């Protein structure tokens, strides 16, 4: 099937979705990051003038090929990097403000945890960093270890953990403070299919609890399954932004599929189509896959560099 150009794919006059009414949790304005070397020389323009809003209660996906600036965006939001220009606000506070971390959970790209601690010690350590009292810590630790299915390995040092186990304890670590905003950098890498499924269910469950999730990934199936809205980055530029269901609806193709139509009615429709020099295949709006959308954006960006996205609802 012929794919229409992405630019015409989504309509802009749709009614605002239910998520857009909520308050803004993350806001970036003109957020730009240039990596410099020791001498201050410019190395990489990793992020170019990003404007983004993530609202309460939505699952927001950052997409893009390797090196497109997803992790950079996340680190800027966490205050691990300082913007070259523009600003990033989280909960209305500057991203470098430490106190915003009280309500954030972060799962980094890889499990950057202390390998000489065991699962309990790890969670206890991070719990203390949230100034949690001992009783509360113990309770959270038990709950979390249970929910990531690591009960059998809770006293083993992390250096003995497999990649997927490390990922799970990393997730538990991100949830220790019962955060309102969870940032997940490629949450499903290293997980087996069951683990991936569980991770996705967990993300949906968190959303249902009213939490906001920002995740980045290049595993499109995952994003398609769970995200409410996505932004697609390519070489540090925002290429596409909008609701997943809308973005994947091909607006200029109509698919008609019907039952119980009389022969006359079918003939009538056929004549209408013939009158317009069309061929009826079936009747509806088909959805493309995210993979197709993604590849199209990449192709399109390479053909016409510099084009930037408008928010599509």
């Amino acid at each position, binding site marked *: 099937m012929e794919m229409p150009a992405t630019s015409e794919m989504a309509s802009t006059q749709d009614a605002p979705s239910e998520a857009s009414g909520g308050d803004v949790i993350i806001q970036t304005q003109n957020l730009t990051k240039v990596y410099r070397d020791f001498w201050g020389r410019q190395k990489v323009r990793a992020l170019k003038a990003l404007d983004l809003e993530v609202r309460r209660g939505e699952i927001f996906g950052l997409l893009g090929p390797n090196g497109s600036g997803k992790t950079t965006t996340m680190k800027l939001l966490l205050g*691990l990097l300082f913007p070259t220009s523009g600003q990033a606000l989280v909960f209305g506070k500057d991203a470098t403000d430490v106190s915003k971390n009280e309500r954030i959970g972060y799962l980094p790209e890889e499990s950057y945890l202390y390998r000489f601690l065991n699962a309990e010690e790890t969670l206890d350590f991070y719990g203390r960093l949230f100034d949690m009292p001992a009783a509360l810590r113990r309770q959270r630790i038990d709950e979390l270890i249970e929910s990531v299915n690591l009960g059998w390995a809770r006293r083993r040092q992390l250096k003995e953990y497999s990649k997927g186990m490390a990922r799970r304890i990393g997730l538990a670590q991100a949830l220790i403070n019962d955060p309102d905003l969870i940032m997940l950098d490629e949450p499903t890498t290293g997980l087996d299919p069951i683990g991936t499924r569980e991770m996705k269910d967990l993300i949906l469950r968190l959303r249902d609890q009213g939490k906001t999730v920002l995740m980045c990934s290049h595993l499109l199936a995952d994003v398609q399954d769970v995200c409410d809205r996505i932004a697609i980055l390519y070489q540090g530029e925002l290429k596409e932004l909008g609701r997943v269901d809308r973005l994947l609806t091909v607006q200029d193709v109509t698919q008609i599929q019907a039952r119980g139509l009389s022969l006359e009615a079918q003939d009538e429709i056929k004549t209408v189509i013939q009158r317009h020099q069309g061929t009826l295949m079936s009747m509806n709006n088909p959805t493309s896959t995210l993979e197709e959308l993604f590849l199209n954006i990449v192709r399109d960006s390479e053909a016409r560099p510099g084009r930037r996205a408008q928010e599509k609802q």
Partner: protein
Amino acid sequence: MVLEREILPFLVWLLPRVDSDGVLQLGALLLVLLIAAALLVASLFIAYLRMIIVQGPGEGFYAVAKSVATAVTKDFPNTSWRRIGAMTKLAILESLRRRVLIVFFVFALLLLFAGWFLDPASDHPARLYISFVLTSTERLMLAMAILLSTFSLPNDIKNRTIYTVMTKPVRASEVVLGRALGFCAVNSVLLLLMGVISYGFVVRGLSHTHTIDPDELEMLVDAEGGQVLSGRTSFDVGHRHDLTLGPDGIGRTGRRMDHEHQVWVEGEGENRRYRVGPPEGALVARVPIYGSLQFMDRTGRPGEGISVGKEWTYRQYIEGGSLASGVWTFRGLDQRQFPDYIPLEMNLSVFRTYKADIVSPVAGTITLKNPTTGLTSEALPFGAQEFVVYTHPIPRALKAVTAEGTLIDVDLFEDLVDQQGDLEVWIGCSDAAQYFGMAQPDVYIRGQEGSFAWNFAKAYLGIWLQMIIITFFGVMFSTFLTGAVAMFATAIVYTVGLFREFILKLVGGELDGGGPLEALLRIVFQKNVQIDLDMGPVIDRAVPVFDQLLLFFLWVAAIVFPDFSEFNTSRFVAYGFNISGNMLLQHFLVTVAFVIGLSIYGYFFLKTREIAA
């Protein structure tokens, strides 16, 4: 022991004053405040310059102001002990994982082998043993502190484990403080273990006894007609003692190698045995009572001593065979403390203008004078030798010379010590053309004995304080340098601190040969320090300018960095002097000042560092 510097009373040390030369001394408190203010201004200026480059003048100013405001209003007040505790615990676990306890075994091994090489038959075995354990503990401990503190944070940044930490509500100050406290805790435990082992090593290493062969004893009759046994002990660990046994069967040996033994008789007739107790007096902690020193010149009038051009400038010399003398005034002496005699100890340095006979002591006299009545005792002769501490018990019963020139019997406390308990001790040199060098701490009255074990512990406290300062320096550097560089920087701080005195002299132009670059050129081109550099007009001009700049930085470093040589109190213990609580308190406060200052710097460096860059 020769004290290089006077230990000031606490308040004199702390507060501003005008010293005896009329020079204003700032005192520690003002000095710290001044340095802090200077550092504050300099740091803000440098931070502003950096932000101007990054963000431009207006924005840069705003950025600096904002980060200071955040620190003061948000981060410091919200400090949580639980978070600091978490970082501390992490640092401890990390250290244990890095198997720091191995250092302890290295130390134990070191002592094991040292036992073979330390010669208990040396002239001053206690000095040897104590210096050895304290020096090796100090070196090992400080190396340990540098290694532990400098690599940890850079490793966290390299492994990116810091990402999961800094995205929690933990403040940079808590990370710095927690880390440093953790390493201090680990090192403290190590130090404690080393201390206990060292103490055992010293006590065991020095412990020995002798036997007495009854055939070598000789019966004498003393002044009261009692029977006294005299003789000598067996020869063990390189020495033997003379001994006398009183009529009651109890006696003491003579003093050899800084110690003596008690001797007693057990049993009767056939079973009569002579016993020798453990060594006594080797491990002591004298508590000296210092007086104030005033010089009399060779005509006997108050004046200056002579500089013989060596040693420390503050030690002055008096000429033998003249009226020149050093007068120590001791205040507040209490008869109850010294019922029988006043134990005067001195450690004069001797400068011989002729050395035909360098073995026999140089003769001197001690004269005691009542500061109020002017009554003066007869001169008591003594002999002084280099590097030897002499004890002169001044007996109660003395003879004094009246104005008419007749000798009368006087009592030390009744007649020579005045109402306020003050006493003047005049010390002169009677050998013409020989000199005595004197400084205030060289002559003192030996007050009550301190406990050696506690004194030993206090020396360890000195090492402990150094370890804390080094650890905080290490952690501070590691917030913005890589591990190896931070280690190097910390080592430099320690070195500069150790040679602070030398650097200050160098900067003050008191040393020949010019600054570092000039000195290097002189070495390379083999020009001795007395001649001009003379290498062409350009070099002759440029070298001093360069050196001045270099010396300026060294000067700043020497002023700001801690004086580690001052913290090293092992010589006190080794020479058997009590480490005064006052000095310990001074060192403690200096440490606190460094801990606070370095934590603040560490906070700002870590806070303004782009961790993921």
